[in-house]
């Protein structure tokens, strides 16, 4: 058995790390300023614990975010947008009546992550900071036009969610920074957003995933705005800007949508691996852009628009 265990890396105990449990955001940021480089932030642990267990990471300190109430807020903003604290779990998003009614694409993405136990622990902030190119929420949040709020002791900044993903599992968050919240703008009138995931087995991450959001002009046919997010289509989640350009200002006909889907398949840069070849992933990007667009457009009439 020893050899088998060794191959999977489960023979070594997790390196001991000091656990710090701040109860306010300011305390957490102060701890990060002090220990940043050697510490790791612990959210739901669903990804981090795998790295610790395998000995791939050995931080001196774990800064647990569980005790910080303000990171758990999930609330509508006065203008009709949504603020999601970084520690809101995927289960909460999936079951929230507010999210289901007004931001169904986010509920779609949360509901297809792994399994119920993982979703009860895993958080939206942890998912984004893990920056897995096959995670589901990034594509939905790109389509929703979300921003992320990142804080460090003495200041904070906001960036569009697509700019968070620098490289493979490498978010644009420095060692002394914390992802605090995700801000989703209010749904525009005549808009609809959807997220669709394609996977081979029930608990897999996305082979490809597509978030599609469209806003119609007053004529009810022209595309006034569009956002397309892709996962499983490169080393990071991507925004398919060339596909968007095919649609913006044009009538949303089947032909246009098919052309946009082809543009998305062309502009992305999927990896080949044992699950699927680059070629197959491009084909599936094309198919799922079309399908996600159909669901999003149906939602425009579904009372989602103001």
């Amino acid at each position: 058995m020893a050899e088998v265990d060794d191959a999977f890396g489960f023979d070594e105990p997790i390196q001991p790390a000091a656990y710090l449990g701040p109860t306010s955001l300011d305390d957490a940021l102060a701890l990060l300023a002090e220990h940043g480089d050697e510490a790791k932030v612990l959210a739901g642990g669903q990804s981090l614990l795998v790295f610790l267990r395998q000995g791939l990471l050995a931080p001196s300190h774990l800064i647990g975010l569980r005790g910080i109430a303000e990171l758990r807020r999930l609330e509508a903003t006065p203008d009709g947008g949504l603020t999601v604290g970084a520690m809101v779990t995927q289960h909460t998003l999936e079951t929230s009546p507010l999210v289901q009614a007004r931001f169904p694409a986010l509920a779609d993405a949360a509901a297809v992550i792994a399994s119920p136990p993982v979703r009860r622990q895993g958080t939206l902030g942890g998912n984004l900071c893990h920056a897995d190119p096959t995670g589901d929420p990034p594509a939905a949040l790109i389509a929703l036009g979300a921003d992320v709020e990142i804080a460090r002791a003495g200041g904070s900044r906001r960036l569009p969610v697509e700019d968070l993903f620098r490289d493979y599992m490498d978010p644009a968050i420095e060692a002394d920074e914390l992802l605090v919240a995700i801000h989703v703008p209010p749904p525009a009138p005549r808009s609809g957003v959807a997220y669709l995931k394609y996977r081979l087995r029930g608990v897999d991450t996305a082979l490809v995933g597509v978030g599609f959001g469209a806003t119609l002009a007053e004529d009810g046919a022209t595309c006034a705005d569009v956002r397309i997010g892709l996962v499983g289509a490169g080393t990071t989640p991507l925004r398919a800007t060339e596909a968007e350009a095919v649609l913006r200002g044009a009538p949303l006909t089947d032909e246009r949508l098919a052309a946009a889907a082809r543009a998305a398949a062309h502009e992305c840069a999927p990896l080949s691996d044992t699950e699927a070849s680059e070629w197959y992933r491009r084909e599936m990007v094309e198919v799922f852009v079309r399908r996600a667009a159909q669901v999003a457009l149906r939602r425009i009439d579904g009372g989602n628009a103001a």
Partner: protein
Amino acid sequence: MRLEQEFQVAVPADRVWAFLLDVPTMAACIPGASNVTQTGDNSYDAVVKTKIGPVTANFGCKIVVLDLNEATHSGAVEVSGRDGRIGGGVKARMDMTMTEAAGETSVRIVTDVDVLGKIGQYGHGMIAKRADAMFDDFVACARARLT
């Protein structure tokens, strides 16, 4: 896993050959490489540091240069690297050939690489992308030194 890469540089093959065989100078162009020391006629030790996602690996590498043929400007390099802390490594053989035309040299490198242990979980797609990115950096650096 097999990787095939090629680059062109506007100097004669002799110059490229001399540069690539001067391992300490050449290694300065390898992203993350340090502590290059000669351990024998054709063998070297080096440390290569690379970061994939949150994980930083420090590969202690043994490098052997072999099958050199000055007349055809071809040769091979075997590298075996291991990171003791995270338990994983790489083994690679790179076969290099060069052709010169009109003062420009084209270098072709075919690499057979095995990724061992925990690092293997990243999948060959990810590792091939990373290898391509490192190669591009290497080529940019080599060009700057040669021209």
